[in-house]
């Protein structure tokens, strides 16, 4: 690639010079801007690699967090799931920096294990798939807490974790592709709306 030696900074400087000069405006910006865009991607892609060590959660809690994220947004025929999308790392990072998250999520994971121990004599991760489903179905709906107030803390925990798992998934490359978002690009004109479906 002939352009390989040019830095993002060089291109931006050229862009700025073009802006001051004025004459090359119509030609330079879209190509140069697109180039900067690609370059940013390469820089960012090169930066992340390696296995993640949890910053806040214990190894056991982190394993449970992974299992929960995987259940909330699983892999399906169209795309990977929340774990592949890096949701557990994202949640662990935020939790390590926020005491309220530590209470809600760290405390919530303890709550979940103690519920499972009461019911089945073992922690969540050691429960059978059927037992896990029963427990999660119990805390995944507000209505259940209205019937059984002992589930209230669990429902609050799961509701918070569900939101953060969605955050983690839908801000990932996989999640954004899953929604078929098209954009974050450079266009010379905005094309407007394709034909509207009949309502």
């Amino acid at each position, binding site marked *: 690639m002939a352009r390989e030696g040019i830095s993002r900074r060089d291109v931006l400087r050229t*862009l700025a010079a*073009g*802006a*001051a000069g*004025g004459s090359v*405006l*119509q030609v330079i*910006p*879209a190509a140069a*801007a697109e180039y*900067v865009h690609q370059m*940013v991607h390469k820089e*960012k892609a090169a930066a992340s690699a390696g296995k993640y060590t949890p910053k806040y959660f214990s190894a056991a809690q982190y394993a449970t967090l992974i299992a929960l994220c995987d*259940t*909330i*947004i*699983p892999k*399906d025929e169209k795309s990977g799931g929340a774990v592949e999308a890096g949701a557990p790392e*994202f949640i662990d990072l*935020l939790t390590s*920096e*926020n005491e309220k*998250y530590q209470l809600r999520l760290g405390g919530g994971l303890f709550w979940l294990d103690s519920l499972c121990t009461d019911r089945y004599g073992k922690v969540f991760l050691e429960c059978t798939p059927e037992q896990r489903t029963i427990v*999660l179905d119990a805390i*995944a709906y507000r209505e259940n807490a209205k019937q059984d107030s002992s589930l209230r803390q669990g429902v609050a925990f*799961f*509701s918070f974790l*569900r*939101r*953060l798992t*969605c*955050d*983690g998934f*839908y*801000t*990932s*490359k996989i*999640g*954004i592709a*899953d*929604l*078929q*978002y*098209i*954009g*974050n*690009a*450079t*266009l*010379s*004109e*905005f*094309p*407007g*709306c*394709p034909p*509207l*479906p*009949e*309502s």
Partner: protein
Amino acid sequence: MAQVIRSPKAYDVCIIGSGAGGGMAAKNLAEGGLNCVLLEAGPNVNPEKDFKMWTWPYELPHRGAGVGGRARENFSEFLAPNGAWEIDGEPYTSAPGANFQWFRSRIVGGRTNHWGRIALRFAPIDFKSGTRDGLGDDWPITYEDLAPYYDKVESYIGVFGTKENVSSAPDGIFLPPPKPRCNELMVKKACDKLGIICIPSRLAILTRSINGRLPCHYCGQCGRGCVTASNFSSSQVLLPPAMKTGKLTLITGAMAREIIVSKDGKAEGVSYIDKAARSEKRINARAIVVAASACESARLLLNSKSSAFPNGIANSSGTVGRYLTDSVGSDGWGRFPQLEKMPPHNHDGVGGMHVYIPWWKFDRKNEFPRGYHIEIWGGRHMPGVGMFDGLCYDEEGYGAKLKQRARQVYGTTIGFSGRGEMLPNPDTYCEIDPDVVDQWGIPVLRFHFRFTDYELLQAKDMQQTFRSIVETMGGEYLAKTSIHGQYPFGIQEGGKIIHEVGTARMGADPKTSVLNGYCQAHDVKNLFVTDGASLVTNPDKNPTLTILALSWRASEYLLDEAKKGNL
């Protein structure tokens, strides 16, 4: 005690604040040949390094949620203000029962780096609304006084829009608007049925190159700051030409503490905290332009006490800090199943709406005084944190079904934000808190704030309008509001719309106002306030364009007075 370090150099003008009001003054005064110094409380901004344009959420470790997820509730970490409603070490307080949220941006360019770029002229009637309905006061200037400056500002910064001849929303000098998005076409169609005016919006974003700036590339991320300066910011559009004159000295990390008064009652300098050195310094100037943002400017005036001005400089009327208003804000949204069939397409556009609803009931008798406009949002934007909070709440559950529902509903929400005029009331103002100082030892502001029935009735009307548009469009209205609770009719806390103005208002009568029509203090003729503090009313038009026009007009006047030797 550390000694105050005095700058040996005396400037012609010291400008405090580098946003819309300060940047515009700096440009005009420096280009007019005056030696200026500009104090900015925040750091400098380097667009190519600091702005997150084109960054995907997964390129940031916090994905836009910010450290500890705090930006999730406060302000996305993608955005460019370098500030928010809370700043470490710089508190403010609210009186019992008041809950004012004060947004501050500490960076060169201030809030113009991230603002919504909505650039609306006030209408002729807005300058005389007191006479019209008997509530509040008229401005000391008319639309005709300001119109030439609106022309100049629009021509210089670049605003797109269309000529529509709507009396509540005067036309300006416009670049062509971008084509509407899908959701906007649907809203427009429903508005046509309902007799509501819906027209191309007016934003300070370039759809064509002007003054050597590149046109928009439609990434939809104006709020992050624009690396190509295709939208208006003070830092990229006003300060570079000002710096180019060689007449402007920019001092960053400089938090103004007090305006110093000479024996003859004039402003002679500014005492400020050099944040990096953690020491106090002083600069002398023949004139002072205060543009620190409405409440910050009021705070500075109130903290500038002297034997000549025991209640704060320029405050013989006692009105500094009074007449505080923010815009009335209430939001609504609906879901539109027909959009589930929409093929994926690029919906980004400019960083803001392409169409809007100006105040359209100006010729009727309404339940409330004044009016509001409606901003439109929603559709297939870049996914981000919090986007599926509503879905999670509505759907609950987990697993394949939740994931499938997210696919279905993505991009099918259309939202509406009403932004209306609040009237000043005697219970809404800011003052110096006698008990609290910030980390620089500067006494902080205490806010008093309340809405009256005027604002609540307006918010109620907004909700009814949103619902009727959504239902006409064949959608389901999802916002649930009532007269009860913390947010009656969805009205947001004072300060949340970030249009706080009025705290050093202009007026014909020095007994009831701080400034004259040229933003010049009645009490101190070499002191000017050129930010939102000077506004007499806060109409349903976002204040920035008017601040720019007022500041341009004030700085021309200041130049003229300087030439005549009147300062």
